[in-house]
Structure formats: C-alpha cells, structure tokens
C-alpha cells in the first residue's frame, strides 16, 4: 500500500462539521495525494472506460458510491472485525456494494449497464477502494471515513473525467456525445484513432501526471 495510515488525531467533541482537518481529508486526494496520479492506483479502469465522457461519468459516480459506502460500513464495523479475516470482510462488503450498483444500472440504465458491466464488476479490484479501507476506515470514525472516501473517489473521478474529455474530443470529436468538431469546423475533420484505443489513455494520463508533478514538485522516493 503506497499510502500511510493517517495518524488518528484526538478529535475534540466540538470539532466543526467541516473543520480544517476534515476539509483536508477531501481536498488532499484531489491534488497533492491524488490516488491516480500520485499513488498510481486504479489505472486499469482509468484506461478502460475513458473513451467517452458519459460512461466515464457513470463509472465515476459508481466508484464514489462504492468507496464512500464501503468506508462507512467498514468504519462502523471497525471495532468488531476480527483482524485475521479483515481482508475477506472488506472484500465481501465491497463486492456486495459493487453488485448493488450493477443491479441498479441493469434496472434503470440498461444501455450503460451493457457498456460498463465488466468494468463495474472490476471496481472490486480497484485498489483505491481497498486502499482506503485498509489505510483509513479501519482506524477512523464513520464521518471522517465518509469524507476520506469521498475525497479519494473524487480525486479518481476528476482524473478519469479529464482523460475522457481529451480522448473523446480528439478521438470522436465530441463531448458527452455532442459533436463539437462538426459544429465548429464542419463535418470533415479527421479524428485521432489512437485516442480511442487504450494507448491514447496512457498518453493522456502520462501527460496529466507530468503536468501535475511539475506543478506540485512531487518526486517518488525509493
């Protein structure tokens, strides 16, 4: 696990609902400690679902739901989970939540379900989910865990949405299915087929990581 457990601070009774410390729980993963670009987790799905904005958005919302809810569940159970089977317990909770998401999509957004079904299932293996459970939820109170999960998932969400934005506009000339290129330049603008294939996602993701690390000055230490 590339994150370290955040030391549990002594929470005073009167801590504000969104105190500075709690705001940091949400804001840190958005940039300085981003799960995708800094911790380099969840790359698999970041490559797979990002050819278009719409499925990416559904994926992002699903991951937010799963991370927040599993963080909440594990945090509530943290004092009862036997440590010897904790990984299996986490897995069972995450798998249940993922199945729920998949079932709901199948009932209410069948087109999305068809497009995303495999990748929704693979949220189970998204390292961000288990990473947050191990590193945070097992040792922190429910409300903090929700914030932490929300922050991490949001950090993942904005990165994959950014990747999807560039891939869709260069690969298909559209944004959310709306044909931007056609509107602006007329019908015959060539799109870049590379962007539609997973290779395109690697390139975009690499560029985002490059830009971000240049700005934050983050360097990986061995």
């Amino acid at each position, binding site marked *: 696990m590339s994150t370290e457990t955040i030391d549990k601070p002594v929470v005073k009774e009167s801590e504000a609902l969104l105190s500075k410390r709690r705001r940091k729980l949400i804001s840190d993963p958005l940039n300085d400690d981003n799960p995708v670009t800094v911790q380099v987790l969840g790359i698999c799905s970041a490559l797979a679902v990002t050819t278009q904005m719409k499925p990416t958005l559904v994926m992002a919302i699903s991951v937010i739901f799963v991370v927040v809810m599993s963080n909440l569940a594990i945090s509530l159970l943290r004092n009862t989970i*036997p440590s010897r089977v904790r990984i*299996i317990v986490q897995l069972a909770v995450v798998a249940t939540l993922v199945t729920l998401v998949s079932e709901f999509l199948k009932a209410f957004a069948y087109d999305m379900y068809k497009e995303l079904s495999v990748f929704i299932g693979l949220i189970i293996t998204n390292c961000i989910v288990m990473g947050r459970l191990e590193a945070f939820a097992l040792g922190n109170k429910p409300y903090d865990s929700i914030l932490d999960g929300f922050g991490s998932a949001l950090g993942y969400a904005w990165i994959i949405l950014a990747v999807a934005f560039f891939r869709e506009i260069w690969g298909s000339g559209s944004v959310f299915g709306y044909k931007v290129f056609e509107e602006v330049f007329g019908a015959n603008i060539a799109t870049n087929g590379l962007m539609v294939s997973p290779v395109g996602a690697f390139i975009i993701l690499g560029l985002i990581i490059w830009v971000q690390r240049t700005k934050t000055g983050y360097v990986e230490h061995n």
Partner: protein
Amino acid sequence: MRQSNVYVITFSIILTVVLGLLLSGTSQILGPKQKVAIELDTKKQILGAVMDIEGEQDILGLYQKRISSFVVDANGEIVEKNEKGETLIAENVDVAKNYKKAPEDRLYPVFKFHAEGNEDDVESYILPLYGAGLWDAIWGYLALDTDFNTIKGVVFAHAGETPGLGARITEDGVQARYDGKQIFDENGELVAVEMMKGEGKDYSDDPHKVDGMSGATITANGVNAMLKNYISHYQPYISKAKSGGDAVAIK
C-alpha cells in the same frame, strides 16, 4: 476474544447472511424492472435493423404496431408450442441459449416488420444472428426485403470486442455498409455478405462484399461466419416462404 475461532466464524456467518439477504432482496425487487429493460433493449435492436430509432420515444408501442413474430424450426416449419406445451413467444426465445444446441434442435424466431395495422403487408423480415467475435459472443439482427435476398439493414452487438477496433461493428457507419447488399447469387446459392480485410475500398458494385474494419479482421471474420451460418439455418424457411408465398409465413 476478538481473535478466537468461535468469534471469527460467528462474525463471518452473520456477515454472509446479512450481505446475502441484502443482495437477494435487491435482486427480487429489481428483477421485474430489469426484465422490462432487457425486453426494451431487444425490441430496440429488432426495430433498429429496419429503421432509425434514434430519439424514438415509444419503442414498445411502435414495436406492437409494426412487428409480428413467430418461431420456426430447422426445417422451416412454424412451431407454436415448446416441449412443455407452452405457447412459444418469439421475443422470449433466447438465441444465445439456442446457439448452444445442435442447429437442428434450435428454435429460430422470425420477426415481420409490417405496415401499421396490417400484418399481411410485410415490408421486411428480421432474423436474429448469433456467433463469436474475437473475444466473446457477437449477435445482431438482419433485416431482409420481401424478396428474401436484399438486405434492408443490420444491427450488430457484442459482449467484449476491442473498443475502437472490433467494437466498431455497433457503429451506424459500419452497419450501413450492408444496406442493399444481397445474400444469394444469380443461381440462388447462398453466398451471404463478406466483410473484407482492410478498409477504405469501394465495394459498391459487388453485392456480396462490404468494406472491412482496419485492425479488426478477426471480428469481421466472426461477423461473416455468423451471417452465413445463421442465414443457412433459416434457408429452409426462406425457400418455403418464397415458394408458398405468404401462406407459410402467416400464422
């Protein structure tokens, strides 16, 4: 205490039961809704073979007005009841399940696209297709003109073809290449339509060839095999319907 075997086992059992109940409950509650969604999706695909349904609101209503269906067996005879004696409904025939049986044991649904309100005024016959692509199953619907030769439209779908390569069979642009092509040659022999290797060539003067998809030759081969294979299974019905006029085709 929290580390004792009894505690671990009890905890695991309780967790399993709770999660199990949650999942089976959800599945029970959402089941009917999912069935409707699947039905809508199937009907969308069937209609999509003959018309542009983009932005169409009332798919089910349209389907009811324009499509009638029946089931034939491998000899082209209309089958009305299954082995259990229940009335067969073409929409409920699972093509994927039938694909696993031997071709002569399968049931073959036929969908007639007809003028509104008149079942005999058939505009095209829509036949389901099923086969294998590069990674996983591919399927679709083939709409034939009343001459049972000219293709009026196709839709393809897939379970796991590569996005941007094989998955392009779902694109309108690729499917439109089949429009107006023919499945029988001058002697009445089945040749189907072959998607060629390579992309960007003009096959408009060859009724049995369409332009390929660059980088997706194996998916294209799968589509070719699926077309030929499934049309050949429908051939007994096609020849009966052709010779006997609509007498066979009408329920």
